[in-house]
């Protein structure tokens, strides 16, 4: 089963506060996607986080960081993957929809999202949410985020296209 954190300290507070902020933002902002499309975006970003952590944060092929108090999963890892990553991804999708509506260039949004994520990661490192090892540096994450948000943008476009298709069929 899921383990309890070793100690309820800075990293747990950081996760709780960011989770709360994201939930409040989600509750008060207008919904730009259908329920199914929103669910899709959230699940995709959760899976993206889980996969990225499995590839570069576990033993093989690379082990560049640990999360929270232990290398294994605890309750707060569960919250990160189930609430924080999905809502963050959902807001990226919402931002992208607004961005495209104004006709602004998409690479600027991707760069902005990567930089914002870098800032948040730096903050989370200060709060011991991530502990780097084996030579990883916060700037290395910029490259990772750039790749991740390119994939993310492609996925949001796909969902927007399929969402339109579903609505069209529904009304027909």
């Amino acid at each position, binding site marked *: *089963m*899921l*383990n309890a954190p070793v100690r309820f300290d800075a990293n747990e507070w950081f996760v709780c506060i960011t989770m709360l902020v994201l939930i409040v933002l989600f509750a008060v902002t207008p919904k730009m996607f*259908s*329920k*199914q*499309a929103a*669910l*899709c975006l959230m*699940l*995709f970003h*959760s*899976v993206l986080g*889980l*996969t990225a952590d*499995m590839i570069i944060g576990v*033993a*093989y*092929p690379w082990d560049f960081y640990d999360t929270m108090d*232990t*290398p*294994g*999963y605890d309750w707060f*890892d*569960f919250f990160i*993957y*189930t609430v924080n990553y999905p809502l963050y991804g959902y807001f990226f999708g919402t931002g992208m929809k607004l961005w495209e509506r104004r006709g602004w260039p998409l690479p600027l949004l991707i760069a902005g999202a990567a930089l914002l994520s870098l800032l948040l990661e730096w903050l989370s490192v200060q709060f011991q949410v991530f502990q780097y090892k084996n030579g990883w540096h916060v700037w290395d994450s910029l490259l990772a985020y750039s790749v991740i948000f390119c994939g993310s943008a492609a996925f949001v476009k796909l*969902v927007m296209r*399929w*969402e339109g*298709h*579903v*609505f069209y*069929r*529904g*009304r027909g």
Partner: protein
Amino acid sequence: MYRFPFFMFKGREEYMVLLEFAVVSACVWLLYRQKLLFRLNTLVNGLFCLYLIQMVEGIIVSNQKYVVVTHNAWTFLTYLIHLMGTVPCIALLAVYYARRGKDGTSHPAASSIGVWLAGTIVLTLGEFMLESAGIIRYSRGFHPGASWLFWAVWLAAVFVWDRLIYLKEAKDVGAC
């Protein structure tokens, strides 16, 4: 005692990768044939399968119920394709056949319980293969019986999720 016939692949991870790849390809082809591949509903279900399997596997591995022996690229690739390709694809097919059985549109013999049982057996056999090939290793009393139970509960959760989403979608479309 529990060795699956594919034990012959032990130490031959290349074959396991090919086998996993072949299973995923066959499943994707079947999904395509059933016109399920390019649909938002399939995407939601597939992503839910990925979320659930990765989360649960993470918890199991954290509790050292089994160890993933990824000592080289082949074993890692096999594990990755199994976890992120074979398992979700088989679950998606099971969901599809269970749905058709339930709706009575075709496959009248395919009741949800029958499909669930068949899906559980296939998923358990898939894990046997990985275990037999030495890609995962059971520990702390985890055994194939527990593995069967694990897949049974996991697939049941996917079925419940699908019913919730499918009914919601039907309701939304009706409301339009």
